[in-house]
């Protein structure tokens, strides 16, 4: 709510194709007709805010939050951390970051997931946190396993963590996925391949970050997220122009 300038139009070249036949579900769920483009207005330039009081102490600790701290999840312990910035490279402070993921065996705690890998009784698979004044966030979790999915005959999702970010306005709303450096399944994945620009896909691949790992405890992966920025508004509301 601090800055009500118009949003910079989304660069759709940087985003996935809506229709990508190798990702079969997209075929019947992608609009045929073009999107209607319009300058952002109050409905897109404002958005929900969330207070610290809403969140619990373990909300960003997926190793412990399912059991309320009673027992830790099984798997490779990792710290996922990074910053949320806008396109002008300004930090996005105090914004909600939510994640969800499968357990170490690739099984989700969702009533619809029937993969034969077992649930971990000590792992739920979701977390949330607010960024700090410099846009930083962190989660403690376990590295999710790859899992098969019914698409082509033998498709497997790479290891990934789903990430949802609000920004400060409804028009910045973004859901994406974080992949892991060196995972050989990334180039085989039709969902990752919906992104045309290889450099944009590479930005969703988190590098191993030894400097932020804790010896004898956890490894770290760094994942920065960039949201839409706002246009300079110095010439707004001057019908005569500049």
């Amino acid at each position, binding site marked *: 709510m601090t800055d009500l300038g118009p949003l910079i139009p989304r660069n*759709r070249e940087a985003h996935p194709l809506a229709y990508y036949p190798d990702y079969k579900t997209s075929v019947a769920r992608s609009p*045929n007709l073009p999107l*209607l483009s*319009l300058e952002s207005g109050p409905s897109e330039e*404002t958005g929900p805010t969330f207070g610290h009081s809403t969140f619990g102490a373990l909300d960003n600790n997926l190793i412990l939050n399912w059991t309320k701290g009673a027992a830790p999840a099984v798997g490779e312990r990792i710290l996922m951390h990074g910053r949320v910035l806008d396109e002008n*490279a300004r930090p996005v402070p105090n914004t909600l970051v939510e994640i969800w993921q499968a357990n170490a065996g690739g099984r989700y705690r969702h009533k619809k997931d029937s993969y034969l890998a077992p649930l971990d009784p000590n792992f739920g698979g979701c977390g949330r946190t607010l960024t700090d004044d410099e846009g930083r966030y962190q989660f403690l979790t376990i590295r999710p396993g790859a899992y098969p999915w019914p698409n082509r005959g033998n498709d497997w999702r790479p290891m990934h963590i789903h990430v949802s970010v609000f920004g400060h306005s409804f028009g910045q*709303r973004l*859901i994406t996925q974080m992949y892991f450096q060196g995972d050989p399944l990334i180039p085989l994945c039709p969902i990752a391949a919906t992104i045309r620009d290889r450099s944009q896909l590479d930005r969703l691949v988190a590098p191993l970050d030894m400097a932020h790992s804790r010896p004898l405890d956890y490894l770290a992966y760094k994942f920065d997220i960039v949201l839409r920025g706002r246009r300079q508004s110095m010439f707004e509301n001057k019908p005569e122009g500049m």
Partner: protein
Amino acid sequence: MVQPLNSLTESASQTAGPYVHIGLMPTYAGNAGYYDQEIGVSPIADGAMGEVIQIVGSVYDGTGWALRDALIESWQADSAGRFPGQDGADPAVSGHCRFAADAVTGEFTLRTVKPGRVPSRHGRAFAPHISLWIVARGINTGLQTRIYFEDEDNTGDPLLARIEQRPRADTLIAKKTGDGAYRFDIRLQGDGETVFLDI
């Protein structure tokens, strides 16, 4: 050579996948009690000013099948057209809601107050509307659209006016089905395809 532009590119979107509810609606995913307080449970609290309304609908794919795994977020102004956080905004309106298609019927329900008209930057006013953002398996970038209301004066709305094919504007208008009750169906593809926005 020219100087580099020191700007960043937005992170690429990816589909929310079939299990989006684990992260955003734990109770719906079967994990009730995960968080002490889930967010987006209702856009209004008791005592919100204005007319309480209920909007029911489905999200259909290109074959006419209602999605069972869609998750929708809504964002709106209060009954006087003020967004939460703006001066004088109704404190009982958070404006934000998360709701999902029913796993059996595919139908969603949004209970809220009808928003007021919202002034635009250029001196016009938007007719009362609710912004929607739809994510699901198979949707690679969240789809934005709006709900308008057939019993409101929608003439002059800057967004509706921009739709070249006039019959398509009708895809954004909720139909009244009773007192305070509306139906709003979303068609992702094909006949009657909903207008989706890039704003």
